[in-house]
């Protein structure tokens, strides 16, 4: 059965939630989903990538979060699995990089590492005069809900 691109995009998003620790809204809020999905597609062996999405789909259907994380650790994280794709996906979301290169200006700006560190990317999303002399603002939302 031939899968549609939409299905894989959805799987890419859902598995990214578990890989990055950022919820769907946070990932969608970067505006980078399509770019990153396409970057993976353009830089991976199509056969390997198909296997990866099949495996990711299976893992996501495992039910509870602990079980999914256990499966990810066992089947996606090892360097031998799908040519290290999972780690590359994490790095892409956190740093905006693929293979050591910045994908584009926006990918640098949308790097999740800056959110994880409760700051902003240097040179962009500037928080305003004197903001650095106070604690970062914590927006009132459930931080890690997925």
């Amino acid at each position, binding site marked *: 059965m031939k899968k549609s691109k939409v299905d894989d995009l959805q799987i890419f998003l859902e598995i990214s939630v*578990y*890989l*990055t*620790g*950022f919820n769907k809204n946070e990932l969608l809020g970067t505006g980078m989903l399509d770019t990153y999905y396409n970057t993976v597609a353009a830089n991976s062996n199509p056969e390997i990538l198909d296997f990866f999405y099949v495996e990711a789909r299976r893992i996501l259907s495992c039910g509870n979060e602990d079980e999914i*994380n256990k499966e*990810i*650790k066992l089947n996606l*994280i090892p360097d031998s699995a799908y040519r290290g794709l*999972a*780690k590359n996906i*994490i*790095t892409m979301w*956190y*740093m905006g*990089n693929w293979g*050591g*290169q*910045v994908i*584009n*200006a*926006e990918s*640098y*700006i949308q790097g*999740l*590492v*800056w959110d*994880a*560190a*409760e*700051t*902003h990317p*240097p*040179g*962009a999303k*500037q*928080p*305003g*005069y*004197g*903001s*650095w*002399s*106070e*604690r*970062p603002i914590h927006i009132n939302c459930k931080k*890690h809900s997925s």
Partner: protein
Amino acid sequence: MKDREKEYDVVILGSGIGGAIMAKTLTQAGKSVLLLEAGLEAGISMDKTDAFGNYMSYLDRFYKAPAKAPNSPYPNLKDAPSIDVLDIQAIEGCNKPSTKGYLVQAGPLPFGSDCLRGPGGTTMHWLGSTPRMLPNDFQMKTRYGQGVDWPITYKDLMPYYEMAELEIGVSGSVAEQKGPDVSKNNYGVGYNFPMKKIPQSYLDANVMGHFNRPVNKVNMNGKEYELMFVSTPQGRNSIPNPDYPFRDITWEPAEEKLKLQTNKYWNSETKKVEKIDAAEKENYVPVGAIWNQNEGHRCEGNASCVPICPVQAKYNALKTLRRADQEKLEIRTQSVASKVLIDEKTKEVSGIEYKRYDNDDLPTFETHVTKGRIYVLAASAIENAKILLASDAANSSDQVGRNLMDHLCLLTWGLLPEKAYPFRGPGSTTNIPTLRDGEFRKEHAACIIPLDNWGWGWPVFSPGSDVASAVSGGMFGKELRDHINGIVTRQLLLHFECEQAPEPSNRVTIDPEYLDPIGNYRPVIHYDASDYMKKAFEASKKVSDQIFADAGVEDHTAYSADLDPDYVEYNGKGYNFWGAGHIVGTHRMGNSKENSVVDSDSKTWDHDNLYLVGCGNMPTLGTSNPTLTMSALAFKTAEAILKRLKK
């Protein structure tokens, strides 16, 4: 090819802060100026649309750069290459220099700093810290038997420091300046900076909170010193200080002086000095972005001062250049000076030979000669020295190129016990002045100790390296997010910026074997760190250990030759040092033509119509970031030239 053109009053090389101050001051006083700039035409534009478009292209290049090094936003030109810290590598052995970058690094240690050849010069990527030098810094030989004395004193330079602080637009608190050899007396009675101090960071407050005894001490070499924390004066916009009285700097022909004015200014439309009506006098107005006067009136917290301030709240030399009388100023870009031509009989400079390229990717150029009554080299410490050496000029003392100095930064890093949220705000907002001066300078270098607001970015490329090592270790998901949050938010970095002493063997030379694509010399650098520096590294690490212990900081400092090629051993222990980007000393100022290149007005002893501007003039470095001091010297030189052109 000889230019068919009038003779200019003054020909200036370089549009960095030194050249920009000269161009502005001289043209406003009615002198005709030709400014030659090696970098691209696009970067010099004062047209608002073009200037904005060009600057946004810098920003875009910065975003896309895999390594966000100081020169990453700016074009590196084949025909006028810039030094780049990314090219620094270990030197394999003698007679095997590293030639990876523009510099030919002969070692034994690689020189650790870079600068920018292009419109605005290195002020495009400077951090912007503007502490003044200390009075004792000008008398190192007399006080401590080290290096040399300056031919001028701190007091001589004071009025020019005030001009530089207006030109750059310094934010700071005079009342808060303290430390050894620093007091309110270092400033004139009632003196203020143009703008209020830049707010100190949350991280600064966190660190200072660990030192809340009335007097906190550190021990160095068996002696106790008071640990102090001071807000750093800096060239970025904050809230105007209503008590700051000055509005402009003007040339007063009757008195033959440059003067700070409270009620006069140079009107760029009428091109005249005009009175400010007392009733209409407003507060000091921060100088905004070159494309929009109303943008950049406050630092907006981009946390990217090095390498680029997106809103130009941080000073850069284009702001000064824009205030020049554009009718009196001609700028030629893509024009790389290659030689100072000397009249054999008079020993005066008879012209500047420069090579003009159309396309920086191609090794094609046209050679021109241009003429002025007076010549000013303001092309950076290394380029000035290189051009003089290539011209066999100004070097009867054999000091040209020698005494190359920098601040050698011993970095120490650790994790604070609480989250202090680095990677926010300007690079540094607080410094520890405790070791800037003292009798110990007889034995080892003094240092200023800035608290860094940008985590471990400098030594180990955090937070990217934290992500890389966690991910490669198999961390993912919420565990990864929490790990990054727990580590990066607690990162503390101190720099011990140690004053390098002048040494004749640390030097710039030239070698016909090493030329750039258009046949100009590449600078050959001979460089090492003496025991005077290594002793300071040892003492600094011990002081860092005490500060970390008292603040409950878990030390993660780990030096190795792999971490950074500037690695030295002293008493059996290894230390890395990093360059501060403070390239100084290659054409020192002095009292006599036997032991210096320029006099106290920055005029070369050997050529009556040749002046040098820039950090190369500084006989010693002190513990201050040098831009403010070199800007003060530039005003002094501009005054001397105006006085002379009057005759």
